[in-house]
């Protein structure tokens, strides 16, 4: 039972983290009334996971051999784009807002924003969703006492991941808006970089991209098969034995997306020297804005 608990906890952890972040994001910008976008995105993700799970057990031949892998890579790449977009938008938003977040969000562009958030929820859930469905289904199909116990452990793992997402939400509510934007835009970039290098690795495993040499081997220090290594892998894309291409994708992504999202910070410092001390504002919805 413990083993299955860890497996689903691990698979659902990333989805829970992303859901926690996007719910908090909506709460932070004063639009908890739009939570339903995230909820629907997540529910659609669950539905799509079940559909794919069913499809995999029904299909055979090349559709089964390659189909799920191509969908998997596609979902990864879409998630990378969405997270980058979201990080970029949060930075724009943080820069533009001069106090009243609510009013800014009432702009027409806000609706599009909610769709992105819904899609992030969808891809977050769908990414490992079908795998989790098949795993739990397989356990239930065994119809033995140990199978039921294992399935109970697996479901508890999902509940545990949901609790982690909830903790992110509760914790996120407490930190100030600028801090939340700053921390999550960095975290989302690292997550997206990890997803991109995972996609590159999968394409190498599929033979689409050439196999490249292993750049380093830290498996004796921190094995990516162990619990901590696996979680770090899901969070920031840690690999004990990264291939050259994976590493280049990761670093390249961080440089390009980092310049895209944080370029203004660096540019401003270079143009005007160190940023002046921030004016401290009070109130939940106040953004701390440096003079521009």
């Amino acid at each position, binding site marked *: 039972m413990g*083993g*299955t608990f860890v*497996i689903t906890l691990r698979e659902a952890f990333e989805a829970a983290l992303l859901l926690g972040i996007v719910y908090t994001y909506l709460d932070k910008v004063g639009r908890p009334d739009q939570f339903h976008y995230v909820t629907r995105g997540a529910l659609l993700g669950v539905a799509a996971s079940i559909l794919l799970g069913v499809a*995999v*057990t029904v299909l*055979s031949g090349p559709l*089964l*051999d390659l189909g*799920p*892998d*191509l969908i998997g*890579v*596609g979902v990864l*790449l879409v998630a*990378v*784009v969405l997270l*980058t977009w979201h990080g*970029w938008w949060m930075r724009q938003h943080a820069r533009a807002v001069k106090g009243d977040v609510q009013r800014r969000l009432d702009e027409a562009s806000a609706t599009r924003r909610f769709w992105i958030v819904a899609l992030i929820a969808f891809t977050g859930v769908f990414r490992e969703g*079908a*795998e989790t469905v*098949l*795993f739990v*289904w*397989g*356990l239930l*199909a*065994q119809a033995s006492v140990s*199978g039921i116990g294992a399935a109970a452990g697996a479901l508890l793992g999902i509940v545990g991941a949901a609790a982690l997402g909830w903790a992110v939400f509760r914790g996120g509510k407490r930190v100030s808006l600028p801090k939340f934007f700053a921390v999550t835009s960095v975290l989302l970039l690292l997550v997206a970089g990890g997803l*991109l290098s995972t*996609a*590159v*690795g*999968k*394409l*190498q*495993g*599929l*033979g*689409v*991209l050439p*196999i490249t040499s292993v750049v380093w081997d830290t498996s004796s220090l921190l094995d*990516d*098969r162990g619990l901590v290594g696996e979680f770090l892998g899901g969070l920031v894309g840690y690999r*004990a*034995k990264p*291939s050259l291409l994976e590493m280049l994708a990761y670093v390249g*992504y961080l440089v*390009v*997306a980092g*310049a*895209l999202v944080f*370029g203004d910070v660096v540019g401003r410092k270079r143009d005007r020297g160190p940023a002046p001390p921030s004016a401290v504002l009070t109130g939940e919805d106040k953004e701390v804005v440096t003079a521009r």
Partner: protein
Amino acid sequence: MTRRSAFSIVIVAPLVMLAPAARGARAATEIALTIEQNRFQPDEIKVKAGVPFVLVITNNGKGAEEFESKELRIEKVIPAGKTVKLKVPALKSGTYGFVGEYHEKTAKGRIVAE
């Protein structure tokens, strides 16, 4: 570089990488691997280094299993009663471990390329 053009690079680059996926496959050696009672049979596979091959994995177990090799970057769920063909790219000589992720304690094996 403007922010907009940088942004389109971020979007387009991953899609371009997917393009070669259409590449056709040549007939390659097939190697059978069976999953039964949460174990792989055989648990050691010998292949020629530098030659791609196909793993034909049949799951005779009662539940789904996930063939996973961190080193080969392969993760593949095989539902109970199903057979899956996995193309494996040419490997450098060496030993590559794999596990059944759902039963890591018992389902272990390795591919030896030489």
